[in-house]
């Protein structure tokens, strides 16, 4: 019962919380509607991609502390490449940025596999490295983003209440995640996170799978970095506050640190919840510092609750 709940109930519970929050938002701000939804989903973008990036490696039994730095590298790379570039070149630039992301992630993964140093340590070191790389590419805010690319996340899509940014998010996540999850690689990622010895014995190439998981993480981080440039119109070399936020959302979303469990849906819902909480607190014009406290408390309380549930589950 508890296990079943932990498996699907967690996501269902998050959805319920999200629904309640939407109702609450509508009550405190009766005008809340399409434009609110639009700004909410645009605010989500970088967090959602950072979270997706983190979720993949956590599912694979690892962690990546360099996510925010990789986003910065991708963001400035995009801004520099697109600066003065034509529409066609922009597409090339996007492809390059995605490749850069894949490469950064693969380097992280390869270093973990080759050095056999714990992932948390390797990615801590790489956090500095990618930060440095971003600064080398652009030593201050600069570059620009091609207008048509920026338009991708502005305004509604077909129907007025559906923000394009949400569609963009869904398309990117689905385009990467669904084929991945269906593929052998996706299964292997879950397998090495769940039990890497058993995975190896089942014929999984553990090292290669780990590198691939980190590469996917880098890819998501690159898309996240791209959305930074898309929404601001230029590149910032200083990493934004996405590292800790992504770890928090991943755990809130039901992905267990240690690996093997969870998916992307839960963490993404967790991201929406956290953004919506911030929006509500701003709408209520709550002291901004209290907002930080509320965010921290939500995280701690929910995770403690999850911990107690899991403990009870083990001892039934």
């Amino acid at each position: 019962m508890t296990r079943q709940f932990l498996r699907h109930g967690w996501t269902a519970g998050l959805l319920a919380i999200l629904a309640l929050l939407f109702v609450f938002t509508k009550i405190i701000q009766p005008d809340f509607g399409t434009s609110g939804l639009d700004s909410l989903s645009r605010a989500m973008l970088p967090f959602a991609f950072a979270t997706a990036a983190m979720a993949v490696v956590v599912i694979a039994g690892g962690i990546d502390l360099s996510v925010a730095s990789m986003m910065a590298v991708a963001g400035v790379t995009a801004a520099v490449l697109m600066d003065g570039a034509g529409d066609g070149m922009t597409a090339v630039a996007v492809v390059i940025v995605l490749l850069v992301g894949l490469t950064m992630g693969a380097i992280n993964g390869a270093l973990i596999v080759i050095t056999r140093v714990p992932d948390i340590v390797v990615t801590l070191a790489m956090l500095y490295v990618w930060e440095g790389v971003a600064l080398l590419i652009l030593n201050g805010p600069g570059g620009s983003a091609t207008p048509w690319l920026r338009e991708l996340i502005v305004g509604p899509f077909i129907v007025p209440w559906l923000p394009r940014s949400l569609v963009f998010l869904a398309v990117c996540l689905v385009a990467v995640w669904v084929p991945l999850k269906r593929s052998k690689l996706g299964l292997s990622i879950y397998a090495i996170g769940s039990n890497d010895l058993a995975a190896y014995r089942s014929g999984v190439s553990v090292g290669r799978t780990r590198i691939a998981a980190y590469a996917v993480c880098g890819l998501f981080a690159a898309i996240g970095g791209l959305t930074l440039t898309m929404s601001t119109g230029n590149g910032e070399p200083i990493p934004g506050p996405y590292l800790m936020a992504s770890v928090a959302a991943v755990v809130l979303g039901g992905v267990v640190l240690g690996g093997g469990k969870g998916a992307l849906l839960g963490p993404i819902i967790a991201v929406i919840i956290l953004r919506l909480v911030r929006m509500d607190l701003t709408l209520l014009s709550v002291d901004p510092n209290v907002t930080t406290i509320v965010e921290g408390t939500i995280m701690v309380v929910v995770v403690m609750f999850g911990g107690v549930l899991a403990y009870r589950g083990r001892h039934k």
Partner: protein
Amino acid sequence: MAADGYTIGISNTVQGNGWREEMVCAMKAQALVSGKVDSLNIAHRNTDATGQLEDMRNLIQAGVDAIVLNPSNSDGVNAAIEEAIAAGIVVVAVDQAVSAEGAYVLSNNQEEYAYLGAKWLFEQLGGSGSVVYMRGAAGAGADNDRDTGFKRAMEEYPDIKIVHEVFTGWQQDQGKQQILDYLSTGLPVDGVWTSGIDNVIVDAFIESDVPLVPIVGADNAGFVGQLATVEGFTGAAVTNPGSIGGAGVTLALQILDGKMPESNTVLVDPSIWANNDPEGKALIAAAQNPNLDPEWPVSVQIPGWTDYSMDEIIACKGPGE
């Protein structure tokens, strides 16, 4: 409280630094004393331009009448500014300029800030000597602007040599360790230009028993105190008032009341207070206030723009608190 008072939104992306805290307090105090503001809606946290876009959109959702923001960088938040303006919201950027059309800018001139201090320093050195250049945070917009100003002064004094260039990240501890490291090398230093991490630099000279050299800092309470009290110390503070936030609120209220400024951009030019000229000395003496946090700029008011008292800004209370 006026029933028809305004609601003003505030967006700031650096938290936990004295200058920004003073700026927010100035906004609150000015809103309170103006009597025209019902409530302030403050988004104040550590984040990037994208986070500021989020905060500003939330403020738009909250239906504020005006937004006063300290932009994360000058181009990065234009999208939200344009949306706000389209929604009929008055937008005032303080401290740094924004490039969005229709926004009002009330900014400290960062380029001039660096130029003024550097020029003073180079003059003190008689046009030649070894200077330690202690910048802000690598990659930050304001740091880049200041660098431009600094380089401009350098061009005027070709014999000045930068012997050491570091980024303090606007962190007191890093700045202190960096200067101590440099002092330990025993290499020459004739003057230090800092981007506002200043009082720890003076401390470092004193603690290492190295003869003090001319140091340029900002008008932070701690540094201004040192300018007045440390014996044998020649230095200058360049003003970079955090109270610009209060001025921003005033400007926003004026616009809301229909009093349009002549131009969309108002630059608040810095002034320099050197402790080796009588005028500067007097200003420094007048600015002493032991009650101020050492990280707070002492120029808590901007004449003509702010009306609150020293006590009111220190109380840091906004309307309805």
